[in-house]
């Protein structure tokens, strides 16, 4: 058993930022809120899918696929919420929808959940946070990361490695040995699912999966990489949650798409608070966490000025 740890929420309550009663009220779960949001989200990507269908055979198909892809990659925001069991009160709904999102994006849900647990324990700590994205050393490295090429290399490699029954040394840091077989089984089931879908496409000659799923996800993923960078990149590699995470104030459509995960510092403070209560938690933690008022653009401006040397790098002095 590990030593008792001072979680961010324990710290916030000790410092009087939030009362126990307020926290408990914010943690209230609801199937209704989650399902309504899911329905609207589903309508969004049906609409963008319809735009692709309308534009097939014309040059407009590319922007339509990009737009559809931007919506599709936000399945990640929902999967992330589901891995915290917060969007739906019924626990198994979070499991099922988490797997659905994971299947859409090549992110096996069980494996992601374990990886994400360590991200919350060791946020921004080099060598310990498995989701840490390092501050790029040059502008070209920044563009390379945003291109999503290294991301897909890692995702395909991960799925292949697990499907052939291998767990890397890094993964053994956050996966308990009794779960190795479940992670391997999960990767094999996802691979089998993809194989069946592509075989059916081949047999029927209908390649809608490419136009409505695969290509849009590849086109949209750079947007998700940029959003993921805004959460921690350019913040110091220290344990202090007030400093190591960035919330970004973004527009209502973006907040809707990302299931309020722009309130990222608030989420790290109390990961049991569901997406629909994060704006209220943000009000409570006002001035206590780091907020980028210029939104995702401001976050990237901050990152780029650190890369180009206009501003001191946040990772200087960290080994």
């Amino acid at each position, binding site marked *: *058993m*590990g*030593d*008792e*740890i001072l*979680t961010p*929420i*324990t710290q916030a*309550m000790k410092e009087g930022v939030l009362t*126990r009663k307020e*926290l*408990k009220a914010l*943690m209230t*779960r609801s199937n209704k809120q989650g399902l309504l949001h899911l329905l609207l989200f589903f309508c969004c990507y049906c609409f963008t899918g319809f735009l692709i269908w309308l534009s097939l055979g014309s040059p407009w198909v590319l922007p339509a696929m990009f737009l559809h892809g931007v919506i599709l990659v936000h399945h990640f925001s929902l999967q992330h919420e589901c*891995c*915290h*069991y*917060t969007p739906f009160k019924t*626990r198994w709904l979070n499991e099922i929808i988490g797997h659905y999102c994971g299947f859409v994006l090549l992110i096996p849900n*069980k494996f992601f*959940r*374990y990886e994400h*647990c360590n991200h*919350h*324990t060791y946020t921004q700590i080099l060598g310990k946070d498995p989701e840490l994205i390092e501050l790029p050393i040059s502008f070209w490295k920044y563009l390379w990361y945003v291109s999503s090429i290294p991301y897909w290399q890692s995702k395909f490699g991960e799925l292949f490695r697990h499907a052939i029954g291998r767990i890397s040394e890094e993964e053994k840091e956050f996966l*308990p040995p*009794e*779960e190795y077989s479940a992670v391997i089984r999960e990767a094999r089931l996802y691979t089998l699912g993809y194989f069946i879908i592509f075989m059916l496409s081949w047999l029927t000659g209908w390649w809608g999966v490419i136009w409505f799923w695969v290509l849009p996800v590849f086109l949209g993923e750079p947007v998700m990489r940029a959003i993921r960078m805004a959460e921690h990149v350019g913040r110091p590699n220290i344990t202090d949650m007030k400093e190591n995470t960035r919330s970004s104030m973004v527009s209502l459509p973006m907040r809707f798409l990302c299931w309020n995960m722009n309130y990222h510092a608030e989420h790290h403070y*109390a*990961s*049991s608070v569901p997406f629909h209560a994060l704006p209220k938690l943000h009000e409570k933690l006002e001035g206590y966490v780091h907020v980028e008022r210029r939104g995702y653009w401001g976050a990237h401006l901050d990152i780029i000025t650190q890369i180009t040397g206009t501003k001191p790098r946040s990772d200087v002095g960290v080994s």
Partner: protein
Amino acid sequence: MREKFWRDLLPIAELEQNDVTPAKYGTLDLAVYDTTDGIFVSLAKCSHQGANLCHGYFDGKYIECPLHQGLFDARTGEPKASPATRKLIMLESRIHKGVIQIFR
């Protein structure tokens, strides 16, 4: 071995209804659960990585860790969902003359 006695922990009036209440006995941090099947007490520390379970989501039967959302049955301490794999340390409890007591 030290003899065990029933020891006062918390007046029932101070219990957070249908929720988990933090309590202290000596240096021990405890979690008192007002479950649908009665009062149960465990060490407040999550058996996974030590977060305080009193700050977690409780639905009347199961307590969820506030840090990683691992799940435990608050009546038995049994782990019910990953990343929780080890049982919580439970303490025998009863209500006596309006006070929740633990056998220790």
